[in-house]
């Protein structure tokens, strides 16, 4: 019996080793360990073994069964590995990728989102207002003189109703303040319209971001600190920022802000990027007069506005503003 077991063992191990694929290995397993398998058959013959030999034969059988199982497992791993390797042989990974439809955001959205992200981190909440505005919110509230050139149908789009397309997102300053008590800390990205003929640097409809902070004792230093932080976050920590005195009816003092940028191979240049200033007290008076509450008397604040088309053009060296409204995929794809 023992000899028989030893010879079955040798044959089984050889059969396992010779199995060339999963199927042959499975056949070998059935042949050895299956219901009618050789080892199974021998095991059934143990009944006829003399009692005193039984422990030794039993031990031998167990040892052989373990050896067969180990061999089966090992061979299985070997064959799987070989099959895995086979599955990638001849695959050309230099082939081009399968073409999926790609897409992307418009460059104006990209700059707007970036600016909005920075400003929200600085504690500004979003606000908005209508694009079809009345003269009060667009001009009167913002201290624009009665006979200011902008209040002219050659410069501003009017409707027969007497309303107009807002010429700046600053209208939202008035909209927010008449609805809300101070403190106010808002930004408003949105469209504005001016009756400019469309050319390489002008669009009659364009995008801005307006910002307003009103509270007790807001000063020029806050305006400066806030906008310097914002512009450095936008253009890089090392970017020089300067404020030039300017004039807007709704702020006093007013400033234009330049950032110093350097294109490769060129001398650094100051580039005008935004307008800002301390809210003109006349604006607060106009709001208080309209609402009949004196919520804003004794308040100070600053406001700023930044053109998004200009921002995109500076950032990516876009020479013709019209590219931004043509939506040619060859242009858009450069931003995806």
């Amino acid at each position: 019996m023992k000899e028989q077991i030893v010879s079955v063992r040798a044959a089984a191990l050889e059969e396992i080793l010779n199995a060339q694929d999963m199927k042959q290995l499975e056949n070998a397993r059935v042949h050895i360990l299956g219901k009618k398998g050789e080892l199974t058959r021998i095991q059934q013959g143990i009944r006829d073994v003399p009692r005193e030999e039984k422990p030794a034969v039993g031990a031998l059988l167990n040892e052989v069964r373990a050896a067969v199982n180990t061999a089966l497992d090992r061979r299985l791993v070997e064959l799987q590995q070989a099959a895995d390797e086979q599955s990638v042989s001849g695959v050309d990974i230099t082939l081009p990728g399968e073409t999926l439809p790609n897409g992307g955001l418009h460059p104006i959205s990209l700059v707007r989102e970036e600016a909005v992200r920075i400003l929200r981190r600085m504690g500004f909440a979003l606000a908005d207002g209508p694009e079809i505005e009345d003269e009060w919110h667009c001009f009167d509230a913002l201290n624009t003189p009665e006979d200011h050139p902008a209040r002219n149908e050659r410069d501003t789009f009017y409707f027969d109703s007497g309303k107009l397309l807002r010429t700046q997102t600053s209208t939202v300053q008035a909209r927010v303040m008449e609805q809300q008590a101070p403190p106010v800390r808002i930004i408003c990205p949105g469209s504005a319209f001016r009756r400019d003929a469309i050319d390489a640097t002008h669009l009659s409809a364009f995008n801005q971001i307006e910002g307003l902070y009103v509270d007790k004792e807001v000063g020029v230093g806050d305006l400066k600190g806030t906008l310097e932080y914002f512009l450095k976050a936008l253009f890089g920590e090392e970017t020089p920022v300067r404020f030039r005195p300017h004039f807007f009816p709704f702020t006093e003092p007013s400033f234009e802000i330049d950032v110093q940028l350097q294109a490769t191979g060129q001398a650094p240049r100051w580039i005008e990027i935004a307008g800002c200033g301390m809210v003109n007290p006349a604006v607060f008076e106009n709001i208080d007069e309209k609402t009949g509450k004196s919520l804003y008397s004794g308040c100070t604040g600053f406001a700023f506005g930044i053109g998004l088309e200009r921002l995109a053009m500076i950032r990516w060296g876009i020479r013709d503003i019209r590219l931004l409204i043509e939506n040619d995929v060859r242009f858009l794809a450069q931003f995806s």
Partner: protein
Amino acid sequence: MNISRNWLAEYIDLHEIDTQEMADMLTFAGVEVEGMQQRGVNDDLVVVAQVVQKTPVEGSDHLNVCMVDAGEGSLRQIVCGAQNYRVGDKVPCALPGAVLPGGWQIKEGKMMGHASCGMLCSASELGKPDKEHGLWVLPQEYEVGTPLSKLTTSDTLFELEITPNRPDLLSHWGMARELAGISGRLLKADPAPSSVETKPAKESILLEDPQLCPLYTATRISGVKIGPSPEWLAERLVAIGLHPINNVVDITNYCLFELGHPLHAFDAARVQGALHIRRAAEGEQFTSLMHDDYTLESQDLVISDDSGRVLALAGVMGGLNSGVTESTTDIILESAWFLPSTVRHTSRRLGLGSDSSYRFERGAAAWNVLRAGARAVQLILECAGGKAEPTAVAGQAPCTVSEKQAATATVLEQGTDAKVYCALNQVALDWKELDVMTGGSIPHMEAARILKRLGLQENASGLWDCPPWRLDLKRSCDLLEEIVRVYGISNIPATRTSIYTAESAQDRAHDFRCTLSYRLVGVGFWEVQSFKLIARQSMDPTIASVEYALPIKPLMEGDVISVALPLSEDHAVLRPSLAPGLLAVAARNMNQGVEVLRFFERGRVFRNTGGGKGKDIEMEVLGILMAGKLDPASWTQLRPKTVAPEHLRAVLELLVPKCELSLAPAKQPRKAAILGADIQLGGQVCGYFARVAPVVCRTLGLPTDCYYAELDVRKLQQLATAPFKVKDLPLYPGSGRDATLVVPSALRHAEVLKAVGAAKEKLLVSCRLKEVFTDPSGEKLATDRKAVTYSFTYRAADRTLTAEEVDAAHAVVLKTLTEKLHDVTMR
């Protein structure tokens, strides 16, 4: 406005200040420097040279090799392309190293094999007016080797943009006064005479509308000799880009650019009787000095005489019938104050702007009326001779100070027998406001010093008297601005304060809209931004037009909002839908060979709610266009499928995954659509879905199947962001059964679902369309039938269903289907 540095230097000490420093000084005064041009030569390496020899270069039709004597002891070889000079001529020669206007540096070089050691220059290359069209041939008496800068003057021209609040800077004297105030540099003597002899105008000047013209002065000068201006005067005008005309006209222009007040000279012989300053009659005719004819309206203010003719458009332009000519001997010199809005109105309406109207529109100081007039009289007597009468004064300076202030205001007095009074604005400066605004960083002493340097004075009552030229200073904040501007914002420390801010409804809307964009970009859509003003109708397919609108609610006549005065027919109305813009974008890109057309736009659309009689509303919508191929062609897929309705529907389902989406055929048609449907989410109409009518696609040059959806973003947000609780995951497995129904081709999926629902089988948890089979040949299935296979899933929450239970439930569903649907057979 153009400012000449040399001219400016007559009024302010500009010693040892270079051009860039001056530009910076202007910039930080709030004046934008739009350009700087160097006029003339200031480089000593540009010298007088004499052409000694001139030999044509072989093989060139215009180049010559010249030997020139630049006073160096030996001759210099220079290749030159100009044609207008001869041997012996003296011309400017830029030696190597010289820098010409525009920053152009001269180097030694070679031209067609000949060494060229310098450059012979034309006048324009040296920033001078070019007269000869070639080299600048210099007078023979100039010595060779002399730097040209010693023989001719150089200048720098500043092109400045003055903000509308500062009309007082629109002259050389005004600018000098400002720069002196800012920098502390010495301001020289005021060029205007300190006194002027006046007399009441009586009947000689009639102010018929004192509101539009409250002050008019005229000085009669007899016996003038009209002729060319003296060289110094002509040079001043040329320096700022004007053309000298004759001495009298030039002097009025000179005074305008010196003191900032516009003047006009009439030929006294061509004025009959008194001057009438009146409104024009409707339809009255006027011919300007430039020979242009204009029809006037009653809003226009004119200068007329007893004959009734219009001699001038007040503050805008003189008339052809009364101007100074070469034969003029007596003149009437006008210096007046006109209401800014009147001048602006006339100048705008007629499209007729002048240096004069520009200043009156922005507000000239009445204080300058007599000063400028007197200065011009002084110069005319000096340059053209003649004898001046005292200046006739009609009216009075308009009162710029409030009634309350008028009683206590400091008043300036001008003239002798007829006086002009100018009350000064007085402003109370709130020092506390200054401290708040600047964080206390500006000492009050320093602030007061700044105001004084700008011409303000603290009066006995502690108020600040503003100088008569600063009409913009009215309130405390105006003075604060001056202090901050001059002190310099760079000297005020930056602070960073912030407050906690509550998230606004717009914050949430913004975030939701961004999510929509990101989802669409993720499945291959391009975001576009099209123009909000579109055409009502257009033959050009690249122009978005209302005809192709696919709005959520159909448009009625009059709903579209037009601007009153569009720039062009292409941009005449506000878009009522995003479809026109997106279709134009698709057409443009298809034209460029793009095959997968997936575009979306987010933004506002505009409409009137009641055919032009209701309210104008703005709505935030999302437009999605899908056309052309489903995927780009690639080596794995040579012929990708064409887009079908289910593809766009899949995109919509992805946008708001939590809501049940259904498309219901739209009751009201839109012109640009076939197969229009209302998009319903959770039972609410949230948008419109359409296949763009093929006829529209053909018109637009978009020969493909094109699908479009427009969604109400606010409604989407409400539905998609509604609060929800998670459902428990099933504890027991479900069991599936398939069923194939052979039904008429026209039977809709929705009807099958409805019939399934009617079974009210509690164990049924889902029913999914698995396959649709049709056979156009009719062999396996009649051509008017289709075989639809559905997969049903059955599950109980509390146990694993037995096969018998599942079969029983499935039988109930199938039975209901056979009952509810007509003409159906099970397969």
